[in-house]
């Protein structure tokens, strides 16, 4: 780990000089983001072109710039013994002290501005609340790497403060010494980009387009007319079918292209280094990220695959870590798009020093879950029937039928795909309708279990089990109750007997 240039972190370190540009850039960006509707309005309507308006914007920019400048000059960081000390503020001074062994992960990120200047934003995540998350904005690459090594080295140097490290693990470390590297090629990235996250993107697009339509409407339509009227009028004509078909395929094409672009932008040039039970991933076209994950902090291992991806032997892997309590927006997890089965196995092996488990004989939920879910599906159907009845349009009630049967089909597919395996030290749950997700939950990471059975389930001995972890909940819904009870006993037994810590 010897760097060419040695850095002294024991004295207070300032941010890089070039970070001044960063200050300027972020100032402009924040002001622009906050004020863009006003600016856009000004350009379109050409009414507010008075000088004081510009003066106000100028003052806003200046004050933000000055406060950011002060923050910049009064920011310093240093590493003394085993503590990271961050000092900031001019009038309100604050000092943050973090023990190095409390540091969870150190990530290097680059926004577009950073990329131009060639500086990095270092995010330091600590165990605990989000308020103790630390950002060091503006360090050059070599120094950032050196800092990262200093901050994370304590993890490797004194393993007694860490935890899981039995003899097997030590052997595994020696085996893995030959730094494995997984690189995701552009082709598999394109393949995965074409096939992933349809629903999510579709939702995003709809949200976007409504916003855009509303904005356009403000500008181009008078109050009483609406853009939807135009669309309706157009579609009432005889070429209704044609418009529908064109719209439908157009939408699909837009979704796919949007998806592809998003995937390529975020995950361009994806590389993973597997070294010393550490995963280090680097990726990104406009914004770069370098994220490293120690294997013993992985709480859950997920991979998903849909029908197309199955044909191409590609998986999307999600490595889940501790989610912070306060902000649920920022889910912590590392996404690896487009690895093949062999690489998947390697990844799994590095993290858990174990091979992927064959899912041949597992448990399935009780068949009654189908009846329950279809009964739930009946509620919207009945409601829409009632509405149709009261609006005297029962003639159209056949419309409900295809939707209802589609719902039934989806429920059946979900049931067919679901499977649970409890083997070795893992609870493995495979589920999903289109994107089939397989979740590996190591038993040692379970924080709490809750097993439940309702009055109606008693006769058939069905029940549900919730497994709570620091990275989310896994629910086994409608399984055989006796099996679940056995499972609970065994899980508790293993946790309490092994006494492995979960982090």
């Amino acid at each position, binding site marked *: 780990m010897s760097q060419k240039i040695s850095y002294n972190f024991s004295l207070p370190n300032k941010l890089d000089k070039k970070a001044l540009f960063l200050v300027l850039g972020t100032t402009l960006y924040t002001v622009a983001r906050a004020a863009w509707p006003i600016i856009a309005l000004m350009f379109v309507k050409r009414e507010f072109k008075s000088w004081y308006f510009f003066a106000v914007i100028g003052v806003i920019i200046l004050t933000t710039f000055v406060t950011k400048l002060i923050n910049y000059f009064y920011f310093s960081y240093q590493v003394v013994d085993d503590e990271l000390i961050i000092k900031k503020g001019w009038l309100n001074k604050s000092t943050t002290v973090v023990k190095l062994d409390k540091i969870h992960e150190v990530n290097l990120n680059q926004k577009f501005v950073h990329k131009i200047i060639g500086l990095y934003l270092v995010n330091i995540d600590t165990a605990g609340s989000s308020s103790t998350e630390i950002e060091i904005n503006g360090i050059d690459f070599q120094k950032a790497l050196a800092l990262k090594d200093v901050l994370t080295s304590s993890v490797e140097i004194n393993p007694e403060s860490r935890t899981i490290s039995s003899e097997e693990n030590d052997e595994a470390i020696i085996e893995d010494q030959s730094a494995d590297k997984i690189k995701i090629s552009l082709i598999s990235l394109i393949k995965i980009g074409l096939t992933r996250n349809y629903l999510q993107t579709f939702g995003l697009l709809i949200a976007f387009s409504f916003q855009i339509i509303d904005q356009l409407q403000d500008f181009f339509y008078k109050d009483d007319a609406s853009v939807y009227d135009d669309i309706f009028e157009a579609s009432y004509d005889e070429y209704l079918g044609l418009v529908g078909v064109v719209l439908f395929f157009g939408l699909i094409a837009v979704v796919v292209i949007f998806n592809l672009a998003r995937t390529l932008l975020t995950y361009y040039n994806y590389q993973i280094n597997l070294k010393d039970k550490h995963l280090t991933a680097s990726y990104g076209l406009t914004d770069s990220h370098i994220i490293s994950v120690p294997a013993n902090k992985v709480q859950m291992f997920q991979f998903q695959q849909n029908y197309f991806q199955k044909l191409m032997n590609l998986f999307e892997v999600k490595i889940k870590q501790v989610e912070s309590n306060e902000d649920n927006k920022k889910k912590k997890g590392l996404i690896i798009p487009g690895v093949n089965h062999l690489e998947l196995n390697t990844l799994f092996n590095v993290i858990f020093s174990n091979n992927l488990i064959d899912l041949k004989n597992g448990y399935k939920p009780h068949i009654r879950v189908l009846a329950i879910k279809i009964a739930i599906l009946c509620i919207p159907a009945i409601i829409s029937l009632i509405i149709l009845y009261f609006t005297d349009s029962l003639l159209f009630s056949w419309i409900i039928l295809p939707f209802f049967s589609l719902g039934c089909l989806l429920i059946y597919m979900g049931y067919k795909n679901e499977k649970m395996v409890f083997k070795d030290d893992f609870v493995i749950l495979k589920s999903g309708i289109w994107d089939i997700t397989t979740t590996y939950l190591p038993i040692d990471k379970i*924080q709490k279990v809750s097993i439940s059975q309702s*009055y109606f389930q008693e006769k058939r001995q069905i029940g549900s089990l919730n497994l709570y972890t620091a990275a989310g909940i896994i629910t086994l819904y409608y399984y055989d109750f006796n099996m679940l009870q056995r499972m609970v006993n*065994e899980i*508790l037994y293993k946790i309490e007997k092994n006494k492995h810590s979960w982090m």
Partner: protein
Amino acid sequence: MFENTLVELDEIPQYQEITFSGLHNNYKKIVVLNSLITLLLGVGICIVLFFLIDEIEKLFAIISILVISALLALLPLISYKKKKYAFRKHDVLFKKGLIFKTTHISPYIRLQHVVIKQGWYAKKLGLATLVMYTAANNFSDISIPGLTLEEAERWKFFLMNRIQELNDESENQL
């Protein structure tokens, strides 16, 4: 020294076979008070609605609110008896639910911290709630209401000791 002998399934302790202890009798008073407050709130909303809205359809809303608040008030009265707890050597168990019977179990080695909570009425009655937090984020705490303050403090002391012990053992194991 680490042993890992072969285990038959029957040797694994069964959580189902434990005798649970019930909550303190005075806890009933808290439940009754809470139910009364819920009922009063419901009735209050109904009265306000009755005088505010001048249409005949208001009766539907009023009746449904009344029924819901009555149910919300009644259910805890029946189901509080189902709340039971047990402390084993390695984990804590808490059982509840009338129709949906749920058992929450958390091993001591996964507990982050233990807190005693007291509302004003509980303070008057000398009762306390023992809350045990784990690192899992949502709904992951186990809280046992209706213990006497003395019991709660003794359990807390026991738990703190136990957590320390187990953590030491876990570290020595390496």
